[in-house]
């Protein structure tokens, strides 16, 4: 045994030396990293309402999701002289937070930010302003005349403290989608009030069990139904303040309506993108309140509903109200980086991609937020021959979004999915889950630094 003794001693000596050099290395790295941490600030001139980085030649870096890839490519083909570096990412789909994650890292390393980026989430401005990423757009970058062309309220989600930090790509106003030939065959008429809608749901459950008047299984369910009912669950009253009241009459009357229809099974709790909905209920949709993008993404592509069946009507309103209020389910946004070294080119791209007729007016899959392009888009959709009605309800709804439901830093969809959806699956009523929903929103809001009033 003693043979090993000297070698053990030597090993200990070596490991001590190694430990010392390691500690030295660690300290050096820490110092270097700490020094780097403070860097990355803009050093150029202050213009257009923010301190701009020194402008350079070079490729414009644009981040897009798979769907917006066509837009970037079309821009490139129309502007061959612009050097474009198109990067494909998930577009923050399903609240993946990819962009935010990356920006936090770029902020630490002091480089890497994209010049222009698309996101499918409309609450990006709420963190991107805090993170010093989004450039103000209405302080000189984008002319007021262009901004005035956007639909009323379209850019509300991009506005923080009166300053605009992103441009809306498309609107996601909710409407009432319905299967026109089926409705006619059953001898029903399109409901115009929520009371009529509920009565129809009860009738369908009795006369044609299995057919659906709606779906309450998605994480964006509250944005379709409770927003339309003016439920004050998510009233962002300031940059870091929110008012939450999920148990007011506006909320409970819609919750009760949904509970009746869920109980009689005329409203599904599967979720339109779930495998079981596509398999078991795709052909059973009679009516379906949902956002503008349901037409293409759900009916045409997802459920493969044949042409000339799906039609659009205004979302119902409560009896006694003068016009419907609708919710807003997503809708993409474009942000321009404060750190961009190619602001002129980035601004040009941003303006083109949100307003150009050849893209927004003809090729874009969603209802354009820029009103003149939306006109064109509606004509193009009508000409496609897929829909069984004209789409004016979509246009009308674009200005009917109830403005007291905001886009905070915390995800309303994630909260609903984690709090209410499991209860629904277990057979609890939405009405009974409203207090738990309230509690959860309040906790998440506070945890994100919001001042909450209830």
């Amino acid at each position: 045994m003693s043979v090993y003794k000297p070698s053990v001693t030597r090993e200990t000596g070596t490991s001590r030396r190694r430990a010392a050099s390691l500690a030295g290395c660690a300290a050096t790295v820490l110092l270097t990293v700490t020094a780097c941490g403070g860097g990355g600030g803009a050093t150029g001139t202050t213009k257009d309402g923010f301190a701009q980085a020194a402008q350079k030649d070079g490729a414009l870096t644009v981040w897009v999701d798979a769907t917006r890839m066509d837009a970037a490519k079309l821009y490139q083909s129309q502007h061959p002289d612009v050097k474009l570096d198109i990067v494909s990412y998930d577009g923050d789909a399903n609240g993946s937070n990819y962009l935010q994650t990356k920006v936090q890292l770029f902020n630490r390393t002091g480089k890497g930010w994209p010049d222009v980026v698309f996101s499918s989430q409309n609450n990006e401005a709420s963190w991107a302003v805090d993170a010093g990423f989004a450039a103000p757009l209405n302080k000189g970058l984008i002319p007021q005349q262009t901004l005035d062309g956007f639909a009323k309220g379209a850019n509300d989600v991009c506005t923080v403290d009166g300053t605009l930090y992103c441009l809306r790509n498309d609107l996601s106003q909710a409407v009432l989608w319905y299967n026109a030939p089926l409705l006619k065959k059953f001898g029903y008429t399109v409901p115009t009030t929520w009371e009529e809608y509920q009565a129809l749901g009860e009738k369908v459950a009795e006369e044609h069990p299995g057919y659906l008047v709606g779906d309450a299984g998605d994480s964006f369910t509250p944005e379709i139904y409770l927003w339309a009912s003016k439920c004050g669950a998510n009233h962002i009253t300031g940059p870091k303040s929110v008012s939450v009241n999920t148990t007011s009459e506006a909320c409970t009357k819609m919750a009760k309506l949904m509970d009746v229809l869920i109980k009689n099974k005329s409203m599904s709790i599967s979720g339109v993108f779930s495998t079981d909905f596509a398999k078991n209920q795709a052909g059973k949709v009679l009516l379906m309140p949902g956002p503008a993008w349901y037409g293409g993404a759900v009916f045409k592509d997802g459920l493969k509903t044949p042409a000339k069946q799906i039609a659009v009507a205004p979302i119902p309103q409560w009896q006694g109200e003068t016009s419907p209020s609708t919710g807003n389910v997503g809708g993409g946004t474009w942000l321009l980086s404060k750190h961009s070294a190619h602001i002129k080119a980035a601004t040009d791209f941003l303006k083109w991609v949100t307003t150009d007729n050849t893209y927004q007016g003809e090729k874009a899959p969603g209802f354009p937020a820029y009103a003149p392009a939306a006109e064109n888009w509606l004509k193009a959709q009508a000409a496609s021959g897929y829909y069984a009605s004209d789409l004016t309800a979509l246009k009308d709804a674009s200005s009917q979004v109830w403005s007291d439901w905001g886009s905070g830093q915390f995800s309303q969809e994630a909260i609903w999915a984690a709090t209410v959806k499991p209860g629904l699956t277990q057979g609890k009523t939405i009405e009974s889950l409203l207090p738990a929903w309230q509690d959860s929103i309040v906790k998440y809001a506070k945890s994100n630094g919001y001042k909450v009033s209830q």
Partner: protein
Amino acid sequence: MTLTHSSAGSARGRPRGTSRQSRAGMAFVAGYVLLLIAFGVLPTCYAIYFAFTNAGGAFTGFSNFVTTAQDFRFVDSLGHVALYLLFWLLSLVVFVVVLALLLHKLSSGPLSQALRFLYYIPGALAGAASVLVWLFMLDPTVSPVSSLLETLGFHTFGEVIAPGNLALLFTIIAFWTGAGGWIVVMYGALNNIPKDVMEAARIDGANGWQTAWRVQIPMLRKWIVYMVILAFAGGAQLFVEPQLLSLASTGVAGRDYSLNQLTYDFAFQMNNINGAAAVSVELLVVSVSVAGVFVARSGFFDAD
């Protein structure tokens, strides 16, 4: 037995071959050590530095630890991870040891080889890929075992992934992914038990059960402890399974089920890297302490 010189003397007194061997050994280990320093030790030091400072780099004592522990999700996540670890470690110890013993009993026949291969396959799938396999298995609409799920009363994916089922589901996924490798390791350890010890047990009249309980399992003790230490450290860092399930269920499974998910949320959702580091350091301290207790109690480093 004869060399008791000083370290310098021992180096000089050594045959040349040994010193060359030792240099070669160091060269082989050097690459690993460098990577360990670059991707293990330095990030750990960096995390500790973050945990005790604020965004501006000023020392803040334990305030990051207090802030994160006061977050409303912290206790829930802690509970989730504790429950999962309980299920995961119990199932690992019981089933891995039993399966390895059975495998060993089958000796070296073709069935044993086939089983070893079969056990090992899931481990060959990368973590995220194996979770994706399970996302299909657990969805009654597309699952190849949908009839089994229906018999158990699950008709939709939402019913399967109800919050109460998650700890069990993650245990099943983790066991399926990770246990095969351990079974093969235990099988190797069982093969290492000297033949004469087994022979002696048999001559003394021990039956299969007695041999397993009184001879094999005690001799596997160190391997079991090793497995528990690594499984605890891995399990405490539960992340991929709940994260993917959360995405697949569009949030029903929750984005803050485990402590590691919570650190991710702190770092990238709430821009609180320092808080995230504090939770990571807590996980490190707990894992190292548990490992320490196991090592001390089991005499892990005692020479046989």
